[in-house]
């Protein structure tokens, strides 16, 4: 069970992120989650939105380089130690975590973590076995 994540190439210059966010906002694209990975000269913006298809079209039309990939979104109770179970399960199964970021919603007492792993299928299976709840695209959009 995975969700779609959009990545966008951004130069490390003042105003670059603002420009993209402005485009999304003008087109009423609602962001669920966001993170930025920064390199020396550029950054990679990663977002999860409600309407992936339209968002990608709009971003591409604006001249940005973008890509879409599947990531895991795990729901965890908003309490100390809750993330540990997920990470331990992945570690024990020898699944490498490329990156991760967390977000919360209006929903009380719940937090969500996006996980980018090398093998989504294997990771889903392992986490499912441990009773860890993952979000699908539909649920993600309805948050």
């Amino acid at each position: 069970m995975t969700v779609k994540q959009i990545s966008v190439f951004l130069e490390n210059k003042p105003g670059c992120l603002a420009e993209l966010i402005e485009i999304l906002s003008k087109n009423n694209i609602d962001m669920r989650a966001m993170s930025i990975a920064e390199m020396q000269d550029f950054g990679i913006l990663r977002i999860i939105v409600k309407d992936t298809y339209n968002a990608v079209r709009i971003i591409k039309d604006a001249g940005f380089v973008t890509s879409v990939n599947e990531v895991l979104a795990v729901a965890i109770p908003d309490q100390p130690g809750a993330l540990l179970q997920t990470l331990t399960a992945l570690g024990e199964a020898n699944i490498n975590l490329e990156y991760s970021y967390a977000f919360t919603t209006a929903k009380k007492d719940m937090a969500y973590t996006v996980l980018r792993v090398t093998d989504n299928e294997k990771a889903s299976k392992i986490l499912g076995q441990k009773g860890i709840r993952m979000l699908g695209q539909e649920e993600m959009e309805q948050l």
Partner: protein
Amino acid sequence: MEHYYQPEIECASREQIIALQNERLVKQVRHVYDNVEYYRKKMEEKGVTPDDIKSIDDLHKLPFLTKDDLRDAYPYGLVAVPLSDCVRIQSTSGTTGRRVVAFYTQHDIDLWDECCARAIMAVGGTKDDVVHVCYGYGLFTGGPGLNGGSHKVGSLTLPMSSGNTDRQIQFMTDLGSTILCCTPSYAAYLGESINERGLKDQIKLKAGIFGAEAWTEEMRRDIEKSLGIKAYDIYGLTEISGPGVSFECSEQTGMHINEDHFIAEIIDPNTGEVLPEGEKGELVFTSITKEAFPLLRYRTRDICVLTRKKCSCGRTHVKMSKPMGRSDDMLIVKGVNVFPSQIETVLLNKGYAANYQIMVDRVNNSDTLEVQVEMTPEMFSDSVTEVAAKEKELVNALKAMLGIYAKVKLVAPKTITRSEGKAVRIIDNRHLY
């Protein structure tokens, strides 16, 4: 007091030089015609035979050679003696087509060494000097050329080669180097390093011979001040022999071309017409004494001016200005020849668009090269590791092609200016010319 290695030649009268050139040119054209099929065909196409060349006044009748000819004739097509008579190969960096591979007989090595010996004595070098050579040794002509010249003079030669600045400085202080030979940017760097370490009073340097890249008068003054020496320019190219084709004397107002070995012409790079003395144009050389790789009318692509104004050093050979630019798009970065087409080849091979920009700068007297490339959807990924790996792959491929490190900067699509007509690929912020 002015020192000369071969005063009878270096200070010969104009008439003597012309007589020597006439005799040698006629002989050389015959040698090339008889032994280099590639050039013979060029002469035939132009309807010229060796009989048409009776003196240097007929030089303009001969066809030019360019780097393209070197590529077409690679590797042996321009060699004029049996390979068994050759004793050395020297080469420039770059790939096939851009790489120059030159051949030398022992006679050719000797005359090249003599040219470098003249350069060393022109800066005051004698057998009592310690000549510290930190040009690269190996295929690059810098190290072997000055090394050979230093031997001819009888100086104590330190074949340091490039790099390892700590060791350079230690040898310099421990063994009392008096003449430094390297690129001007490395000389400036050595100067800074020596001053930082507070070792300036422990070095005995009096002069430096700096070449293989363009440098300004400001840089000369900086180096002279930081090292407490006189800094002299030297010029050469692998095609013609190596460093020592021309060199500066005490007057420091241009480089005397060794006219007993090389005839210089200045041409209009667009029409190929020979220009009168004093006009700015492309420098063309004819080797009149070399046996193995005797290039006739080779176009250097360097733009400069020749002058026969009397020189206070007593030498009578024609002087060339520092190169004022290029008639092609070649860049010299850290002493290495870089063509934008080489960078383009790498980008296309690695799946990038041919839209790129080359930024050259000089930071703390050292050249920097940056290639800006537009990000493409094929290249992009959500993973920093993957993008960094692709960037690294490109850096390595550029290093393999150019021989020097080039920083790669990935930029957003459509941000590199598309110009109408000829693309502006190079931004050189060094302002060397």
